[in-house]
């Protein structure tokens, strides 16, 4: 019975191969036309909701004044492509500086977070190590209660971090959840390998750097991306602790430009005020600057997401 049913399976069509279709189980009904259409429309609509706004933002940022005026505002179909808005923004001035600040914060912050997290995760990765349990508890307790905004604010300003770049890094430098994910992976490294290294005379540092870390490259990439995205997106700490507008990260400038309709001094040169460059295009260009690194980075790491996050989360 089963054998005959299996024999009846139709051959894979080219379309099915192109879409990498999984074989349909024998007992499952053939899909109806209406069902397929519904499914296709639904998925297209879901994707369009994400893609269309981004598309409009990008296209408008690449349009010149004439195209923007002709469209009466935002441009949906590109007529001409020009990079004036970007050239203007990145040729010095507040946006250039803010972009550099954001890049620097992301680089330094991610490095600090990763070093501290990897070390801590490895330090806790052995169940029988000394003080393992109290240290882990100290860590995990912070997941369940926070001190609240006011005491944290008083502390950060009290220890003289206000208006310093460190105020955007240190208070949220580590995520306990990320450490637990890393720890889960480190604990998975084959104990035989570690044992062998130890017999060969390797110390903990050497085991971590030469054995454990290369084996967990995927999860390290994912966690680094999480930290990097966090620093790149950071706005709240900057708003709380930074008064000097020269130290503003990009997100602060974006908020001023688009939501508060303020033009930060030196953000746009004379070209905008004289009307050569459309201010809408400039706003959009700043938005694109804010999203580029994420859109570029995340696909590379995306294939690791599901595996990495889920196994880590379940074990953590």
């Amino acid at each position, binding site marked *: 019975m089963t054998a005959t049913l299996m024999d009846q399976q139709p051959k894979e069509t080219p379309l099915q191969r192109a*879409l990498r*279709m*999984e074989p349909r*189980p024998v*007992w*499952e*009904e053939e899909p109806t036309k209406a069902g397929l259409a519904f*499914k296709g429309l639904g*998925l297209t609509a*879901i*994707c369009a909701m*994400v893609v269309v*706004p981004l598309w*409009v*933002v990008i296209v408008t940022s690449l349009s010149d004044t004439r195209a923007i005026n002709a469209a*009466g*505002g*935002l441009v949906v179909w590109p007529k001409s492509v020009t990079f004036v808005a970007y050239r203007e923004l990145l040729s010095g001035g507040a946006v250039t500086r803010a972009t550099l600040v954001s890049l620097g914060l992301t680089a330094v912050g991610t490095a600090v977070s990763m070093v501290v997290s990897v070390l801590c995760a490895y*330090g806790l990765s052995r169940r029988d*190590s*000394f*003080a393992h349990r109290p*240290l882990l508890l*100290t860590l995990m307790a*912070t997941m369940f*209660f926070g*001190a*609240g*905004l*006011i*005491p*944290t604010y*008083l*502390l950060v300003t*009290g*220890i003289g971090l206000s208006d310093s770049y460190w105020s955007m890094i*240190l*208070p*949220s*430098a*580590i995520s*306990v959840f990320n450490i637990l994910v890393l720890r889960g992976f480190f604990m998975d490294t084959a104990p035989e390998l570690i044992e062998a290294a130890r017999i060969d005379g390797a110390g*903990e540092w050497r085991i971590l750097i030469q054995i454990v870390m290369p084996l967990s490259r995927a999860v390290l990439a994912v966690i680094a991306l999480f930290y990097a995205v966090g620093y790149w997106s*950071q*706005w*709240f700490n900057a708003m709380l602790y930074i008064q000097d507008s020269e130290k503003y990260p990009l*997100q602060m400038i*974006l*908020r001023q430009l688009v*939501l508060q309709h303020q033009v930060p001094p030196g953000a746009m040169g004379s070209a905008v005020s004289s009307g050569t460059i459309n201010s809408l295009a400039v*706003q*959009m260009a700043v*938005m694109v600057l*804010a999203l580029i690194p*994420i*859109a570029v980075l*995340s*696909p590379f790491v995306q294939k690791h997401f*599901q595996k990495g996050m*889920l196994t880590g989360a379940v074990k953590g």
Partner: protein
Amino acid sequence: MEFDHGDRTVKARTTVLNGTAGEPDADVAVPPPRTAAGAGGRSGRTRRERARARNRRPVTQGGITRRRRFLRDRTLILMTLPAIGLLLVFNYIPLLGNVVAFQDYDVYGAGMTGSPFVGLENFQRIFDDYRFWEVLLNTLIIFATQLLLFFPVPILIALLLNTVMSTRVRAWVQGIVYLPHFFSWVLVVTVFQQMFGGAGLVAQWLRDHGHGGFDLMTDPGFFKFLVTAQSVWKDAGWGVIVFLAALAAVNTDLYEAAAVDGANRWRRMWHVTLPALRPVIALLLVLRVGSALNLDFEQILLQRDQVGASASEVLDTYIWWTGIKTGDFGYAAAAGIFKGVFSVLMVLAANKAAHMMGEQGVYAKK
């Protein structure tokens, strides 16, 4: 537990006294001090008793003294210290800073150490303040809207994606819907501003077709839906991951068995797929209810000026405003403590509810 402890200390002491560190620890069954046989020494114990004493020792200790374990693991401990230090400074010390809630805090003068204590006066002020209760109600309304309209969306998307046979299409759709999760709130809000704001795409289209005056971004009555829509746009795709993983773990034999028994695809979804999702749904619901007062702070703060405080004020923005903006730190810290206590109570209640529905919840029943 306590017994283990006593046993271990005694052992450590004898090792030092006798100076016989080389003697294999496992064989020195030191008599536990409080047993009757203990007085009689080693000879007074049967083999069974000795074996039991041995087994009582935690396996992980490996029969090494604390001092030697410390020396062995000192590198590991050293490695955890930077992280622990950061947590101590930025998470634990501020906990002490909550004393501000019991003080008449003076920003410019005495600071935390010198400000006079006023007891529960700040809490009294909170409870007497109609504005506080308004804000609390507003927070709960926005939370409820989010819960009703946001929570089912990832489940529906996951169910839809799960029926797609093509792995390539599935990967593309997932890649696209994840993306906004990584955008900052500033970016998300500005994107919404460009789409639905007064000068946005929708307003522009309506203007071209003879309608005017469209601006969702500044409409106080619409605010709770606006916030929910933003959350859906940003995080629904991300929420799908968990549900897809739960769906992938379902035993396909169950589907086959159901099909053989004559269940059509809807029946199979109802009787196989959804029960499989139940524990995950319960867990996420409990977590979500626990953070009821923790709406996305940045998101709401970003739009507070546009929409007006009356519609958009939630507990977090209220604390920020009264504390940091107007300098009433004691009052704001008291509101913060209220928020923390309320949240814990919510988690406990939600977990209790999950248990009553026969689910695990965050922590197990016992």
